[in-house]
């Protein structure tokens, strides 16, 4: 099984030559030339719609429809708050949003499951998955719920609301931006040179993570877990799973970094979505560092309304984690993946965490890492036989496969410089370096210019390397001339 990104991959992605060379410069130049906030918002909206339409223009209709119904529902929630109709727009919004998500993402899955359990054959229309639907439906759901709870005032301007929903920064790959987090910045935001510099730095970091780390990790995954014609050796299986763990982290966090960077360049301050999750010392901590916006969503809108840990805690935990898994993909392995983590978190709450507190830090990491890696195996393989095969290989149970073969050694040697770099960037080196630089330049102001030069050069270097690797991916040699 070739793992596809868990979000619906658009044609214009941040890590593409079209985006870097044309879309982004045009967008930023246009934004800078416009001065009025309304004009800038309109430009951002227009750019976002072009970005979204690049892949499949037809689904713009769905995006606009989804935004429109939640714009109206938000107003109704505010108008009817406290009345006996208060819950009606909320229920209606949930029904429509989840209904759309269910139709496009889960209908085929549900039909297949129903057929395998009951034998009932349902004709489900073969619909392609609209880009970003998992993100923007959750974003608009969070908006309507927050308005109905009175936590935020409804947005009365349709253009402003549309900009919030369809902003290309986070539309297709997150983070799930809460309206409350950026409400004040929608109509009033300022951008300084330092903001743009920080945003640029963050964008370049994300681009580097995606192109230099995630894409390369993806090739390693293909060479190991993707080579299904041959049985996996144990060493290759472990290497492949480690590569996948790196791929998914750098891919996802890279996109989040780019989104946060792009937002910063125009004055938005999106919340962090990843906080170096691989330094975690427990599974609970991991999920407080991984895809933070999704975790917050399920906590605030599912777990706590169900009762949280006050009543039926285990049930609530399993529901939330089952849904978390299901959100990631319409396949039972994702549900199993979610429940897997639900169980570990349940165990930690039941006493494992207390035990771990008394253990040395290294032991806590030794506990977390294999749990995560096994979890990624559940995530990667949608085919049960392949999943079992990989797990068996990892734990030496897949005779007559060898325990080690030349593949793992070769891939390690051929990427001997890449692996340490990838592992290093799992650690919070970026923030540490930034803090150190800031502290140093505060103490020695004369270093600020060299620091600015160094930042400029490193951004340019990452950008050049990323463009080179993107060109390399488009490199398409033929053995004979193609006329």
């Amino acid at each position, binding site marked *: 099984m070739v793992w596809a990104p868990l979000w619906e991959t658009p*044609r214009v992605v941040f890590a*593409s*030559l*079209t985006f*870097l*060379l*044309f879309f*982004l*410069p045009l967008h*930023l130049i246009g934004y800078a030339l416009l001065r009025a906030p309304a004009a800038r918002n309109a430009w951002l909206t227009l750019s976002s719609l072009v970005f979204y*339409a*690049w*892949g*499949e223009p*037809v689904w713009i209709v769905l995006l606009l429809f989804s935004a429109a119904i939640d714009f109206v529902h938000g107003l109704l929630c505010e108008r009817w708050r406290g009345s006996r109709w208060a819950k009606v727009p909320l229920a209606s919004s949930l029904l429509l949003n989840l209904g759309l998500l269910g139709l496009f993402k889960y209908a085929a899955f549900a039909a297949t499951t129903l057929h395998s359990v009951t034998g009932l054959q349902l004709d489900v229309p073969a619909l392609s998955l609209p880009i970003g639907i998992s993100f923007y439906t959750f974003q608009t759901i969070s908006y309507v719920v927050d308005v109905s709870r009175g936590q935020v005032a409804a947005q009365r301007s349709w253009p402003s609301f549309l900009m919030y929903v369809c902003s290309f920064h986070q539309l297709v790959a997150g983070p799930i931006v809460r309206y409350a987090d950026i409400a004040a910045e929608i109509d009033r935001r300022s951008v*300084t*040179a330092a903001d*743009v*510099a920080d945003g*640029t*730095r963050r964008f370049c970091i994300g681009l580097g993570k995606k192109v230099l780390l995630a894409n390369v990790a993806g090739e390693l995954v293909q060479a190991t877990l993707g080579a299904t*014609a*041959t*049985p996996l*050796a144990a060493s290759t299986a472990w290497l492949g799973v480690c590569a996948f763990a790196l791929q998914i982290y750098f891919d996802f966090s890279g996109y989040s970094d780019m989104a946060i960077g792009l937002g910063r360049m125009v004055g938005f301050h999106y919340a962090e979505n990843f906080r170096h999750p691989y330094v975690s010392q427990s599974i609970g901590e991991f999920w407080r560092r991984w895809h933070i916006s999704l975790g917050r969503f399920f906590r605030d809108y599912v777990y706590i309304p169900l009762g949280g840990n006050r009543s039926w805690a285990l049930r609530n935990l399993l529901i939330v984690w089952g849904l978390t898994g299901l959100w990631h993909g319409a396949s039972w392995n994702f549900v199993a993946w979610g429940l897997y983590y639900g169980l570990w978190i349940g165990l930690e709450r039941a006493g494992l965490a207390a035990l771990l507190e008394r253990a040395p830090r290294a032991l806590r990491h030794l506990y977390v890492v294999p749990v995560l890696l096994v979890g990624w195996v559940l995530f990667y393989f949608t085919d049960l036989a392949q999943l079992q095969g990989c797990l068996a290989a990892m734990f030496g149970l897949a005779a*007559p496969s*060898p325990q080690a*073969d*030349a593949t793992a050694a*070769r891939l390690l*040697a*051929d990427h*001997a*410089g890449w692996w340490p*770099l990838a592992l290093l960037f799992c650690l919070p080196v970026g923030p540490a370096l930034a803090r150190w630089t800031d502290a140093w*330049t505060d103490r020695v*102001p*004369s270093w*600020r*210019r060299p620091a*600015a*030069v160094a*930042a*400029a*050069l490193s*951004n*340019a270097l990452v950008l050049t*390397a990323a*463009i*080179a690797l993107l*060109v*390399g991916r*488009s*490199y398409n*040699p*033929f*053995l*004979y*001339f193609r*006329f």
Partner: protein
Amino acid sequence: MTPAPAAPPSPPAVAAASPAWQALPSAVPAALLVALSVASLVLPAETVSEVENRRLAAWPSCDRADAWSGRCGQQIDAYVADHVPGREWLARANFALRAAWGWRRDGVRTYEVAAGEAGIERSDDWAPLAEDASEALDADDLATFDEPVSAASATTRLADDDSPAAAGEAAPTATADRGELAPHSTPAAPSPAPGPALGPAAARAGEPVRKPKPPPLHSVEGILIVDGWAIQPFGGTAGMVKGWTRAVNALRATLPPSVRVFGLLAPSAGEFHLPEGHRRRVRAERPVIEAAYQGLAAGVVGVDAHAELARHAGEAQYFRTDHHWTARGAYRAYAAVARAAGVRVAALESFRRVVWPRYLGSLYGLTADPSLRERPDELEVFVPPFAHRAVHYERVAPTRAVPSRFVREKARTYGSFLGADFPLMVGEVDHGSGRRVLLLKNSYGNPFAVWLLASFDKVVVVDYRYFQGDLGQLVAEHAITDVIALNGIFSACTRYHQLRMMTVARRAQQGAAARAKASLAPLPAAATPATAATPPL
């Protein structure tokens, strides 16, 4: 006492407060992006990439359907990707970066090349397969594998314990002298007893037997760059080449006994030019060639090109930067075939030699390795001293003869030999030898075909990857006296190539059956194949 005057205030901290310096970290990358985008709009667009051997994407003309479906966006993306300014430099930077972060051992660089079903070749525009070609190849595969079925596919990996010694094969000795393969013109070997329907593994009680996915022969470790050579490491086995033997036998079965059939497997550059210290990375090719020839049916002569090439291993018989052999290497194989066929062997020197320096071939295109670029190949083209007439038939118009030439001395690429991979070419020379040959080949046969003009009155060249006609009819129409099935060892061990060859044989069989039915004449008596499974007509 007068107090000392106050020290003048120190100059304000510069740089940090200055917006210009604050903007620098974003201005530099922004300038880079803007410069690249402006340059891509302003500079004249390249149309061809010589390194990639293809035309670069043109600006798309999109209609409403394209725009609505997203195809237009994809086409624009392809255009942008193909026209980034400095693309060649950036591509080299990409390869250099990838090479730099690996740990180079023993002076060897390895490039992982994504290989498909057809090895490193692209097969998306090949002729469709015959439906039963796969069954014909599978018929005996499972009965004659030595290894258990489930482990068969593991042999594509050259694991530490998969060295030739561990596999029981004789370790290769000196590269220059490998002895002779036994000249092959054997009487019909006794058919092996048909094994269990699903192979030896079926004998193990209760063990599920899985029909293995055909193991693709791909570069085991990628393409090796060593000592200025780009070498595909060979990982084929006697089991993997059986499909080639079976396809050639099927061909034999469909041709009249008056037509002589020759099988020729050409070893690759790695057999002779991989330094001794690195031979642990590959399998020996000669035993695989021998195993292939041993399975050939009566009436098929296995030609020992390996010995001929080994005797002249010091010559430029292989490209360093391309996966093919040179015209000089093809000559040695031609000489071996000509002697086996009993036709005149032209002297190498009788052809006019044209040399093009700085040829960078397919393996450079796949790796962009700097050491290959620094030592490019010389492309030798040997032009026949006699006139010849030739036509070719193109894929899009398979019945229209187009005037052609077997040698294009100014092409400066591998296209010097035959021009391109046409499904069918016919060349004629007035030798008066009375011998007419049909060459069934892939790209490896291109320089080889040129030499055949020196010994045969007519040379019919069929590229099995693209040919969709009836080979038997061709043989009859052109009064072919000799058929040569030529493969490089890699393609011979690649199932996708084997299926294509079998498809050609199947179509010939079907054509013969149709003709026989039409004429109500008995089918030509075919030679009995040695293997148990005779492909049914």
